[in-house]
């Protein structure tokens, strides 16, 4: 009886939608409930409005305007004339564009899986009991916390300055000093390594978050059944953290494709465009060659690809969470 009474009492005072109170069928309480429901929707509207306005004005409007610019031959100051798809065809026909596509793909694959492998490895290590484990956890996040401007300067000094320690090591060994940022292949490798160095802490945090949800007893059980460490890793760790891993790959892919400072500050896109990704390519077209149309066309092509891919991936994430 008491539960029914309290339920009625709460209903009489008008419990909001989604509440556990059972509204009585009397008219007044129904009215109150719907009034509160109306209030809820209205409040939600006002609560989300600033965010929507910001998104529309600062993210949405420029997207549409970018579409206009991509089909004009203007500059930053002058709108120019309508040229249809000329910018797109000229971009798609240029060798430099496809080279940038190629580098973007390599950079993204190395960036995502390199940082994931390192991040997951460290997260697994830090999960076990280690002296001063908490300190290591914080120290290992530093590459991600330190501004790229600072770390790229440090890397520049390490690999490219005449009095850097790497040079001294190579000279001491009697070897010729490798031109880390001047040789096209080496520069590409260095930039990719730099990206892994910057990004692994993020993957470490994501992995550590996922690993805390895995119950330790599962491992104990598996090891009693004679499962090797590797079998435990592939049979338990990977499947149980699969969803979070998948999400972290998606986020990191987006971060890598859209990355600008990591590449631009280390190499500026050179040597001979060897480390020019699509974003760097677009930036240089607009702000160095002053070809706004083609530059925005590149950005626009990326945008369309990313909208399609991210919508599909978003569906995929949601589906995986339902299962």
């Amino acid at each position, binding site marked *: 009886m008491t539960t029914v009474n309290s339920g009625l009492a709460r209903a009489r005072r008008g419990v909001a939608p*989604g509440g556990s109170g059972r509204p009585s069928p009397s008219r007044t309480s129904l009215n109150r409930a719907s009034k509160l429901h109306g*209030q809820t929707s209205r*409040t*939600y509207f006002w*609560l*989300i409005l*600033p*965010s929507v306005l*910001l998104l529309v004005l*600062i*993210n949405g409007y*420029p*997207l549409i*305007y*970018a579409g206009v610019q991509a089909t004009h031959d203007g500059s*930053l100051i002058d709108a120019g004339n309508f040229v249809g798809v000329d910018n797109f065809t000229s971009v798609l026909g240029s060798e430099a564009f496809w080279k940038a596509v190629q580098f973007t793909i390599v950079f993204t694959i190395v960036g995502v899986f390199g940082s994931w492998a390192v991040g997951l490895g460290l997260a697994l*290590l830090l999960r076990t009991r280690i*002296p001063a484990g908490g300190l*290591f956890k914080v*120290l*290992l*996040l*530093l*590459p991600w*916390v*330190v*501004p790229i401007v*600072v770390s790229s*300067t*440090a*890397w520049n*000094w390490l690999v490219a300055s005449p009095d850097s320690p790497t040079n001294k090591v190579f000279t001491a060994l009697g070897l010729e000093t490798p031109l880390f940022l001047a040789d096209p292949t080496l520069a590409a490798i260095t930039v990719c390594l730099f990206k892994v160095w910057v990004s692994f802490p993020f993957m470490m*945090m*994501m992995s*550590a*978050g*996922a690993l*805390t949800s895995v119950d*330790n007893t*599962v491992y104990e059980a*598996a090891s*009693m059944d004679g499962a090797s460490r590797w079998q435990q890793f592939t049979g338990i760790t990977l499947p149980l953290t699969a*969803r979070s891993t998948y*999400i*972290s790959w998606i*986020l990191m892919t*987006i971060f890598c494709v*859209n990355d*600008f400072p990591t590449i631009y*500050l280390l190499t500026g896109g050179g040597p001979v465009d060897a480390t020019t990704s699509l*974003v760097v390519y677009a*930036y240089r077209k*607009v702000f160095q060659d002053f070809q706004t149309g083609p*530059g*925005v066309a590149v*950005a626009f092509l990326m945008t369309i690809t*990313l*909208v399609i891919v991210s919508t599909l991936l*978003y569906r995929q994430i949601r589906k995986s*969470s339902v299962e």
Partner: protein
Amino acid sequence: MSTVLHTHTAPPAGVGQFNANGRKRRPVSEAGMRGRWWRFALILAVTAVVLVPIGAVVVLAVLPASASSTTGLTLENFSGVFEKTLASTWLANSLVVTLATVVVSVAVAAPAGYVLSRGKSKAVSGYSLLLFVMQSLPIITSVVPLFILFANLGLVDNLLGITIVYVASTMSVATWMMAAYFDSIPVSLEEASWIDGCSVFGSFLKVVLRNSLPGVLSTAIFAFLLAWNDYLVAIVFLRSNEIFTLPVGVQSFFQQNATDWGSVMALAVVMMVPPIFVFAALNKYFSVGGIGGSLAGR
């Protein structure tokens, strides 16, 4: 699942005993201890290698320049850099922009995150998809049109201009982070306040937000790092030396004085101390793990 059941029926001797609560007591065997020290050595080595670039910055900043008569460690690089550059102005600019971004983006993302967390309608999940799509777009696409728009509004070479762009670019992740935190707060708390006659907005402010300090701090740290570290937006929108934020200032100084490593690194230290300080102080609140759940949850 059968393997799990085994543990409760027959724990083999020597592997581990279960106490009354069913919790395992760790056997500290010699092999276990040795494994622990191996892992410690491994992680120590990895951490040392990882921190080499950051260590290099600090060491170079406190070493005297080759032309200088000073020996040992010195702070003259720092005083020098503040004398001959606008470092103090850049530092102030960066602080103003970053703090403004943090405050505004939490103020906008918290209510939006609340709606995302509690709202069940189609429109809300549509907005969540929109946030995800916006997050995935290259910022360069919107930077060029915004540059033209801001030029007309007088917001180019203006700290307010880049603050607006920063707030907009934190929006997606900040909203997810807030929503993820609100998800962990039971709805029954709000229901109780509604019964006490509180409005929906009132209960959001007084009940939900009041209990969300870790979520707010987490979002604030994220916004702080984004605004403090950004380079692309700053290099496009800021033109004159006295309006530069630290990233642009440091980079321009580096390009002009590439051989004066002491001064360059002193400036770099000035730039990396605030984010490290913020992170060290508030690290326990920061969690990116929630983003995943927040993305998948709705």
